[in-house]
């Protein structure tokens, strides 16, 4: 049984299970949306003194903090007990594309060549980790949601702003992938 679960999960298992998470949260009276947690951290840090945007009662979001803590634990448990027996079965075309950029495929979840402490103090590391993180926080709050809030919850409820936001996610992602990465790696 454990050996079976340890296999990488195909999309037709993962997608429906994400829908189940959406249902469990709705049933508990909550709207699935994780990027709000970034804002709640600001509120907890006292940002309400500087901007009314953060002057909210964080207790309304305490469920989300617990959810986030759970997801960290879930990641930890998987890495300890349910690790993939094989490297990720990445498509050969992607491996070839990345190689032509000068990025070898190491079979892990993230390329250590980029996401390492040593690389943090290089220009490349700053772009991927510092600028990348900043754009995620700024962009999701500006858009009013991320993949979970807009692409999953919003689209499931056929909300037009969420469709527009999801189109935006792809515009940005395609620009980074096809225009910025070749420059960053050159």
């Amino acid at each position, binding site marked *: 049984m454990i050996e079976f679960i340890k296999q990488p999960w195909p999309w037709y298992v993962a997608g429906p299970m*994400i829908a189940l998470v959406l249902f469990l949260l709705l049933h508990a009276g909550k709207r699935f949306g994780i990027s709000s947690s970034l804002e709640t*951290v600001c509120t907890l840090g006292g940002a309400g003194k500087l901007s009314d945007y953060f002057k909210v009662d964080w207790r309304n979001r305490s469920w989300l903090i617990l*959810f986030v803590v759970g997801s960290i634990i879930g990641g930890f448990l998987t890495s300890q007990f349910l690790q993939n027996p094989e490297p990720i079965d990445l498509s050969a*075309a992607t491996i070839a594309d990345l190689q032509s950029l000068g990025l070898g495929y190491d079979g892990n*979840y993230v390329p250590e060549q980029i996401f390492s402490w040593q690389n943090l103090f290089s220009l490349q590391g700053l772009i991927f980790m510092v600028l990348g993180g900043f754009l995620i926080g700024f962009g999701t709050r500006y*858009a009013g949601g991320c993949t979970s809030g807009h692409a999953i919850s919003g689209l499931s409820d056929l909300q037009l702003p969420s469709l527009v936001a999801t189109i935006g996610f792809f515009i940005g992602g395609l620009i980074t992938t096809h225009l910025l990465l070749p420059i960053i790696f050159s």
Partner: protein
Amino acid sequence: MKGFRFIWIGIIFGIILTKSEVISWYRIQEMFRFQDFHMYGVIGSAVILGAVIIRIIKARQVKSILGEPIGIDPKPKNYTSALVGGSIFGLGWALTGACPGPIYILIGNGFLPYLVVLFFAVIGAFTYGLIRSRLPH
């Protein structure tokens, strides 16, 4: 503690996203290069099944455990911020290979440099809060 259920749902979520490799930088690259169906299958099937679930909830007026009818509060109709903010997020999504959920889950998996990504995501959210009145929405 009644909030305990959210830790459990979070644990399930963390396991799903790790086992389906959605948290992988490489998988996100594959998606933005249209070289595999995997990510589209995950997001697409979640949305389609989610839409069916929400239809049923609304048709049957299912109530939450709080006794209130279940509904998804509509997002504000701010199309400019959805498109511009969404694109800004997309730039960062492809750089880091992670949206907010996977950032946390990667940290749980022991990819600790993502603590830096998380820290600057919080700084990004903070910056938005400071200048939002000057941005078009």
